[in-house]
């Protein structure tokens, strides 16, 4: 029982990082109908920036600065490489984002240098003991709290600000929004910047308690099944999907030793298995909007 609870708690922790990553993908998707394969590179860029900034600025300021800088970087990339592609097939744009990923990742890898780097977070691997002897890692609590705060912020932003309203309008119907005076270009830019910033935060928290190395970008790929199983255009879906994937992964990791026929480290592929199972039942994910097709 203790094992199950502890692995669920860990799963919620890592799942909230997946949720942040998923949110970035979904925000871009809602605005532009594109899956941005550049998110892994932005995630890595954010984490690497924090490793450089944490000495002079301290963890929290460094995190904010890195998120802003990565957001600006994403904004620049959107202006340069993605904006000219408006109205082009979405897969062409997706491949462009992949080119961006390759280019940005080479630069970031050069910044990592020869040694493993660290984000210098205040939690490390410390734990709290809950009643019943259950251990909970402080970093996982921090991840959940950060994610909750960011989600609340996003919710308020989309619900109560003019810009948020504009973004919702643009995602609902670009032309109608344009006709109402919404600058769809600004919406695109803002959604890339938001997604970049979220990726930076997610990357940093993925490295909390661990380290930053070239392989960190692989974490971002887990966000793909997350957004699909939550529903591509659903922000709550990304959050729920992230948590589900996180928990399933950790619970599988705990018990995979009892099922040797699954092969080594089966937990790594569980996100995809869960995704396939859910999609067979619900083809638009848990919360995705069912497309209404007219001929």
């Amino acid at each position: 029982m203790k094992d199950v609870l502890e692995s669920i708690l860990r799963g919620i922790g890592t799942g909230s990082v997946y949720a942040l990553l998923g949110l970035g993908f979904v925000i871009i998707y809602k605005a532009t109908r594109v899956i941005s394969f550049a998110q892994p590179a932005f995630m890595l860029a954010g984490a690497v920036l924090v490793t450089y900034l944490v000495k002079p600025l301290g963890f929290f300021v460094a995190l904010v600065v890195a998120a802003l800088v990565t957001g600006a970087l994403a904004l620049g990339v959107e202006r340069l490489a993605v904006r000219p592609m408006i109205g082009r097939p979405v897969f062409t744009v997706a491949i462009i984002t992949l080119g961006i990923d390759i280019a940005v990742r080479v630069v970031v890898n050069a910044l990592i240098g020869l040694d493993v780097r660290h984000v210098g977070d205040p939690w490390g691997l410390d734990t709290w003991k809950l009643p019943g002897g259950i251990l909970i890692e402080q970093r996982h609590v921090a991840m959940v709290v950060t994610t909750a705060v960011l989600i609340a912020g996003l919710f308020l932003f989309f619900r109560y600000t003019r810009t948020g309203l504009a973004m919702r309008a643009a995602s609902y119907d670009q032309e109608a929004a344009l006709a109402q005076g919404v600058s769809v270009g600004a919406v695109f830019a803002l959604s890339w910047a938001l997604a970049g910033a979220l990726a930076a935060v997610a990357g940093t928290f993925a490295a909390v308690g661990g380290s930053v190395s070239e392989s960190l970008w692989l974490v971002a790929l887990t966000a793909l099944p997350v957004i699909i199983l939550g529903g591509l255009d659903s922000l709550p879906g990304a959050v729920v999907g992230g948590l589900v994937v996180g928990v399933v992964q950790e619970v599988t990791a705990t018990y995979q030793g009892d099922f040797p026929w699954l092969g080594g480290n089966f937990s790594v592929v569980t996100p995809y298995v869960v995704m396939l199972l859910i999609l067979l039942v619900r083809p638009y994910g848990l919360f995705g909007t069912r497309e209404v097709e007219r001929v």
Partner: protein
Amino acid sequence: MRNRPLLRTSYGQEVALLDTTSKRVAVGGLLVVAFALPWLVQDEMLQLLGVACVTAVGAIGLNIVTGLAGQVSLGHAFFLAIGAYTAAALAGDPEGRTIGFGITEVLIWLPAAGLAAAVAGVLVAPLATRLRGLYLAIVTLGLVFIGAHVINEWSELTGGPGVGRQPPAPSLLGYDLNTTDAFLTRDQKLYLLMLVLLVLAALTARNLARSRVGRAFTAIRDRDIAAGVIGVNLARYKTVAFGVSSFYAGCAGALLYVGAGYFDPTSFNLLLSVQYIAMILIGGAGTVSGAVLGAFLITLLPRLTREVPSFLPFISNSPVESPNAYQLETVLYGVLIIVFLIFEPRGLFGIWIRLRNYWKAWPFSY
């Protein structure tokens, strides 16, 4: 009467494969050059061109399901893997460390590899009838990850990651293609084999596209509901599309690593799938020649970008400094793809169309 472009006097002309004299001449010339290449360029280059030919077969396959039928599949690496391992197992050494049945006849293991992959494609197709667009893309991507887990674990078949196994050693009707002999070197033979396969694959794909099936595919791509309404059986044609596409992928996978003489289960990853998508987009989705051009470009591009730094003497070639030549070469690969798609979204095929139109009216191009 000489053929004029766009002047058709019969239905036969309209649907002909090569409808103008200039096309016939150009294709004929290209084929002559392609078949003469083994005696013109070095083995090293031939090996690369052979890989490009096989890659082109795979790209044509993806083009059928994605370019023609509009079902974006990121699972191509999965089908390539099935083909590669079916062929390697059939042709493998029965005494070896990995599963092998010792059937080296290429006419047996190549179609078998294609069929095995096609069966997998047909099994996957029901997903496509249920999902669309990006959902389908990411779900097929899931196949790649789950498939990678299986082949990494099944080391009796694959040799295991980092160890790998040998690809099939081809022999054609008893003639050994895998060794150098008095007439031809190994690379020359393999290149010719791969070129012939490419020509066959391209012809078949072109014919498929002009057939009833091809038209059904296009209808599905353009508007699947409309296609359904006019009587195209969506489930059936999507299944056919996945089956044919996977057959191509299986054949390509079987031959892809023959030149290199070794392959590793970790090769069949997301990146490989995405490269194939990039090929058909860069080539120009929906056309066979586009897929072939794209495959050649993506295969040869790293070779080209490796040459670039030597023209820029101020770039350091010491890997500890940044920026250095190796970083530049990798960045260039990414940037070229971006620049290319921004400036020519219709792909290489689009450039070709514009070139043709330019020279058609030359020197009065305005």
